[in-house]
């Protein structure tokens, strides 16, 4: 029962975070929020009993993807300045 409550709470937070990420004007904050969604998703996978998928989601989804988005944002901002 407690795991179901946890999953529902985490799911609601994920949806709210997704909506916030869409509406944020600050792109850096939006990227971080999108990374948080993956982190919460990995907790849900762990509760559902699939640690393998949780590890992949935590490392790729919230770690590597966020970093690559940050590098891309950095590049885009640099090109904006040059123009």
């Amino acid at each position, binding site marked *: 029962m407690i795991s179901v409550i946890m999953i529902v709470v985490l799911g609601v937070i994920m949806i709210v975070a997704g909506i916030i990420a869409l509406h944020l004007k600050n792109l850096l904050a939006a990227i971080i929020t999108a990374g948080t969604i993956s982190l919460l998703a990995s907790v849900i996978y762990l509760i559902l009993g699939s640690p*393998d998928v*949780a*590890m*992949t989601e935590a*490392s*790729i989804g919230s770690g590597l993807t966020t970093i*690559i988005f940050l*590098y891309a944002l950095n590049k885009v901002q640099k090109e904006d300045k040059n123009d």
Partner: protein
Amino acid sequence: MIKKTLVLIAIVGLLMVFWPLMSNFEFSQNLSELASNYVRGSVNELNTQNVVTSVIVTYRGLDTLGEVTVLFLATVGIGFLLGKRKGKKRPASELLQTTSSFLFALIVLFGVYIFTHGHLTPGGGFQGGVVIATAFLLLMLSDVNMKFNHTILQIVESFSGAFYIVIGIVGLVLTIGFLSAEIIPLGEFGKLISAGAIPIIYSFIGLKVGSELTNIIDTMRGE
């Protein structure tokens, strides 16, 4: 107004598509026949403690080969499309430099642990490779002017990919099956050296994924 109505219609349409799936969904108490075959087979035939790993590496080995190929093509594409360019960067803080030089070895060790113990504990080549890539990322963050030797990365990457396929072909030659784990003795259940070729295959995948992702991050970083 029209835009909002269209969005509403799209949401209702999606709900109608997914409602039949939701309405008669029930948690299954028993494994399906295929799943129970996999669970029994991985413990009894392959001596693998982690069932997920045995499915990924052996039973669905061809899919994993495809996944690795997709990652390889992504790396090649990023390296091809994103050229190098120069720019000034401010150096990292003292705190980050000291911490990352201390943590780098530990994180690499943890990554190696994850992919060598893929058949015993959760995790495996992909996760371990990503952890290793994050260790290199930390190194790149702490030393902004650091240059990576791409030749070494490419050698590691292509050799591990080649050996992965060679292991698969050895299984074909011995008429056991493509990417079969039983080409070498299976060993004792639950020991580090067990489960036949699964740890070897996953170590190659781990090295391959680690070097590929390091390559991607370094290319994205630019010079």
